[in-house]
């Protein structure tokens, strides 16, 4: 196992994260570079190895005010260096060799209030019998745009569980392409987008069953408030020879405001004849009967709405397998739903 990273539990000058658990290894990736290095993030878990602890990778976008001069006598300065820094193309690589196991938590944050544009490519390869549990938590400010492309390859008997928690961000796009290239591969994708104000969050999935006997299950949920919008595009492709494929997909949307916009588009392309495929999408509002039930017990309207939102999100958050992590992330989701994020300009504070 490669382990040449410096782990730090506290880079107080940058960011203090409250998510970590005892024993979790923390690693910062600052503007695409692993802390104190010039390299992008790359993890190789060797054959048969198991990462002993959850590894938390904290991607931060930050512009140090010492580097960039922003204004002189109150007048903003057009600094080309600053502009270059705002746009970032970066890459991460995860290679899970045969029979290896790991649990990872990726968090992305924006620490300064600049208009960041991040284009990220994440390559994930699971060799035979490998298991990866990956949680992706995105918490960026309203002026940040983040596009992430996940290119995923799953070989025989491997299992990938991937959970997206898009809590906050101006424009977030997650493009997920999964190629199931070995039989009995198992792919579990879950995602939750919480969008409000003018935020826009998109999830595009291309799930390719290329060989027989693979299983995939997608559950993506969105809550929209104000003038926010979400898009879900989900394509399931089953190749001609990929018999006995099982592919499930669901996208559920809860809209809290008439100004919110939801687009959802499932698409099935199935060329094999002996398969189980199932997809469904719903768009709904707060359920009045449920609210009345709670209120009739003395729970205030405000609290009843929050409980209903938590109920909606629960099948995503409760599927997180590490209890302590589940608890922390549930608290973050609840804080977000209670509107506590909008009190801070700098979204990074919300994880503290």
């Amino acid at each position, binding site marked *: 196992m490669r382990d040449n990273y410096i782990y730090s539990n506290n880079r107080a000058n940058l960011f203090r994260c409250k998510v970590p658990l005892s024993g979790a290894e923390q690693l910062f990736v600052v503007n695409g570079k692993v802390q104190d290095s010039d390299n992008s993030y790359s993890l190789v878990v060797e054959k048969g190895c198991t990462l002993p602890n959850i590894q938390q990778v904290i991607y931060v976008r930050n512009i140090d005010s010492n580097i960039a001069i922003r204004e002189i006598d109150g007048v903003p300065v057009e600094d080309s260096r600053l502009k270059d820094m705002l746009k970032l193309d970066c890459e991460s690589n995860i290679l899970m060799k045969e029979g290896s196991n790991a649990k990872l938590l990726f968090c992305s944050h924006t620490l300064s209030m600049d208009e960041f544009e991040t284009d990220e490519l994440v390559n994930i390869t699971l060799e035979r019998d490998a298991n990866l549990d990956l949680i992706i938590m995105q918490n960026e400010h309203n002026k940040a745009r983040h596009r992430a492309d996940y290119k995923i390859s799953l070989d025989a008997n491997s299992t990938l569980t991937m959970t997206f928690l898009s809590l906050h961000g101006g424009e977030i796009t997650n493009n997920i392409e999964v190629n199931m290239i070995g039989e009995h591969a198992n792919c579990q994708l879950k995602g939750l987008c919480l969008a409000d104000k003018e935020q826009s969050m998109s999830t595009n999935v291309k799930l390719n069953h290329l060989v027989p006997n693979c299983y995939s299950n997608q559950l993506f949920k969105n809550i929209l408030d104000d003038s926010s919008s979400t898009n879900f595009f989900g394509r399931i492709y089953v190749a001609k020879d990929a018999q006995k494929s099982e592919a499930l997909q669901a996208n559920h949307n809860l809209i809290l405001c008439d100004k919110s916009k939801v687009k959802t588009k499932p698409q099935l392309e199935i060329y094999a004849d002996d398969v189980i495929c199932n997809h469904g999408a719903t768009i709904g509002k707060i359920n*009045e*009967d*449920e609210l*009345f*039930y*709670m*209120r*009739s*017990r*003395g*729970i*205030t*309207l405000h*609290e*009843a709405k929050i*409980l*209903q939102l*938590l*109920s*909606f*999100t*629960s*099948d995503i958050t*409760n599927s997180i397998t590490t209890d302590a992590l589940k608890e922390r992330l549930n608290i973050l989701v609840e804080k977000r739903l209670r509107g506590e994020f909008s009190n801070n300009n700098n979204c990074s504070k919300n994880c503290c």
Partner: protein
Amino acid sequence: MSDILLEVKNLRARTEDKEILKGINLTIRKGEIHAIMGPNGSGKSTLSAVLAGKESYTVTDGEILFEGKNLLELSPEERSWAGIFLGFQYPIEIPGVTNVNFIKTAVNEHRKMKNLPPLSAAEFLKLMRERMNYVGMDSSFSTRGVNVGFSGGEKKRNEIFQMAMLEPKLALLDETDSGLDVDALRIVANGVNKLKRDDNSFVVITHYQRLLDYIVPDVIHVLYNGTIIKSAGKELALEIEERGYDWIINN
């Protein structure tokens, strides 16, 4: 002080399409048990929901006074704090919200209104255990999602459990007996009787006289087509069981 707990005067309520309650008059005194019977669709659930403040019904006429206060001005949660409880005919499932969290939130909201601090974890657990015992509910139910995957009878027990936790002055039990087997019926009825005091009241909506063997009503009302067409003593239930409603309706 008056011993009248609830006074409903000429109450009319409707949905967008149609009028359902067409002039209900009902007086309930402290310590009384009233039963409401009547054919399907006559407005029994609507009456209980309107009393509990469901906003999808519009009250077009009449008054509801609870301990002399105008109930129509209060939201459902304010009515709950005032001491009204509705046991639902069809309890709602809330996945992902555990029974214990749900009832704890409710109990603590009630305490907040009385300027009491929230119960400590230990106090709450003790109370919860005790009240779950009232209705023979296993403690494993506390960590399950509210009513999720509960059988029909378990949902009804859960309603009575919630009632026991909130100790209302007026409990409206809408067909709490339907879907219960004989043993469960006895358990639920015992739960009600345990909570019965001479300063609180119950309205039990039921189709069956057998519940009234266990919870003995002071008055039985027959609701038909949005009005109460007959009120009498507990013998009425037996007569309805034998003869049905036609003879009352046609009278």
